């Protein structure tokens, strides 16, 4: 598994460079919106990357991953609404709440496999959706406005566009690095082994579900971070981020980019969200184009965009 200089790693490197340089471009051209747009893309990329950890490497097809976006976001939003503005409190709470939710959901859901797992994770996310919709103190389904972004004692100013963008980017790169280490670690190999053949792993002495569960919690926590970022980015959090279609979007990003490839979800998030944004500029009927594009990618690019690139470089 040596990193080879092939098309996919070249694209990954290029994209990283472009992401880092984006604020410079934005400042030079005065195009603020591209920064706003990419801040959101970067956040979703982080969420998709975390989903990829369980889906691509762990074989756990969660259809409720958007729940963590909501939980991370609500942790920030509710604390802010209650007058606790410090990010040093908000963010750890966001992570802890996501981890806890993942722990409970994982412990119950991991009894099932395959499509049953897909559906039970969906069920829990929908419950989270309905519960937050009922939080009338915090806006119910109208959502909750976050008046002040998280305050990090002056270390970093989240209201500054560039600083916030770089914070998100740092979280993304940090998340990817973490996932990369995990995937190649002992733990990561076990999780991937369990995906491949659970019975075999069990027979050679691994308690499959324990590894699965830990992996599930890690992914949920990372996604909770994305949720905290998203709430700060939108200055708003509402149950809508947890609706099943959002989880579906995350899945699409992962599969589109390339499941089980480290950088795939990032590419997937960029392509999917950019396509959505750009197409909507040209036509109101973007689905007529986006839909067939997705279909064609599945038909002709196994393993998503990264898979396609990988095959191209192999000739």
């Amino acid at each position, binding site marked *: 598994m040596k990193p080879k200089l092939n098309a996919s790693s070249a694209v990954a490197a290029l994209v990283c460079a472009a992401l880092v340089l984006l604020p410079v471009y934005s400042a030079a051209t005065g195009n603020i919106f591209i920064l706003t747009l990419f801040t959101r893309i970067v956040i979703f990329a982080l969420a998709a990357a975390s989903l990829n950890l369980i889906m691509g490497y762990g074989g756990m097809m969660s259809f409720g991953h958007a729940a963590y976006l909501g939980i991370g976001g609500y942790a920030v939003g509710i604390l802010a609404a209650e007058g606790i503005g410090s990010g040093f409190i908000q963010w750890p709470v966001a992570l802890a709440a996501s981890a806890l939710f993942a722990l409970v959901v994982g412990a119950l859901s991991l009894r099932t496999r395959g499509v049953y797992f897909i559906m039970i994770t969906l069920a829990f996310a929908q419950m989270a959706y309905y519960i937050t919709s009922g939080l009338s103190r915090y806006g119910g389904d109208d959502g909750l406005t976050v008046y002040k972004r998280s305050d990090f004692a002056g270390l970093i100013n989240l209201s500054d566009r560039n600083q916030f963008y770089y914070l998100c980017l740092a979280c993304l790169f940090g998340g990817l690095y973490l996932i990369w280490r995990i995937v190649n670690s*002992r733990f*990561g*190999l*076990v999780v*991937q*082994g369990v995906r491949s053949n659970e019975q075999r792993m*069990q*027979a*050679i002495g691994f*308690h499959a579900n324990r590894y699965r569960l830990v992996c599930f919690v890690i992914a949920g926590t990372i996604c909770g971070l994305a949720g905290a970022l998203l709430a700060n980015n939108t200055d708003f959090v509402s149950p809508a981020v947890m609706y099943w279609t959002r989880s579906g979007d995350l899945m699409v990003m992962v599969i589109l980019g390339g499941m089980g490839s480290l950088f795939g979800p990032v590419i997937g998030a960029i392509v999917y969200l950019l396509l959505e944004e750009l197409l909507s500029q040209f036509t109101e009927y973007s689905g007529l184009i986006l839909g067939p594009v997705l279909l064609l990618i599945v038909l002709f690019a196994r393993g998503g965009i990264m898979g396609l690139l990988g095959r191209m470089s192999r000739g």
Partner: protein
Amino acid sequence: MVESLLRVDNLVRRFGGITATDNLSMEVVPGELHAIIGPNGAGKTTLISQLTGQLMPNSGTIHFGGRDVTGLPSYKRSRLGLARSFQITSLLKDFSAIDNVALAAQAHDGHSFRFWGNARKERHLRDAARAALERVGLGKRADIVVSQLSHGEQRELELAVALATKPKLLLLDEPMAGLGVTESARMVSLLKELRKEVTIVLVEHDMEAVFALADRITVLVYGRVIACDVPDAIRKHDEVKRAYLGEQHAVTRHG
């Protein structure tokens, strides 16, 4: 009287109307190679699965190394030193051969909640895996992805994986099945060596191999033990001949 390594008492396992394991008791003593034979569907695989914990018995007990393991899940039994190969090949298909074996080694090298270092670069795991592969004759195929190995090679890999867990008791479910003549012969000699290090329970329909290797043979029919004895006695056992061997094998001698 030697202290037994594995003791099974009154084991029962039913599937709907079928009693696949019917009040079965047996013993395996340390150092022996204990063969289990019997007609198809006699309950051999079912027995192995209960021994390793993939299946839970309806009643009865299993003691391993003096400890009651009846209720333990399979991963815990594996840690105690019980390893198996599967009759129907069960490997990590999208991993390379050496990864399969290295993971088995890793399972018995402390816990695996290590999130940071690169496991594929851990020297001692790789070395142990390579050694196990060499042993079964797959040294040259280490980096091939399992799904691209031929059926016979996958059978050999099954054994390497079991070996890498450094078991005290090795439960082999038809290791010869699917092996060619050469490979079978190689497997027999490998088992001959292995038996010096580890106690083995061997389920096999290849009678030449069984008679060549076994210290004792247990014969199952319809989930019950109908005989348990040294090979020569089994060969002559009338009921066994009738139910399983047929006339031909009763007279064939291993050369």
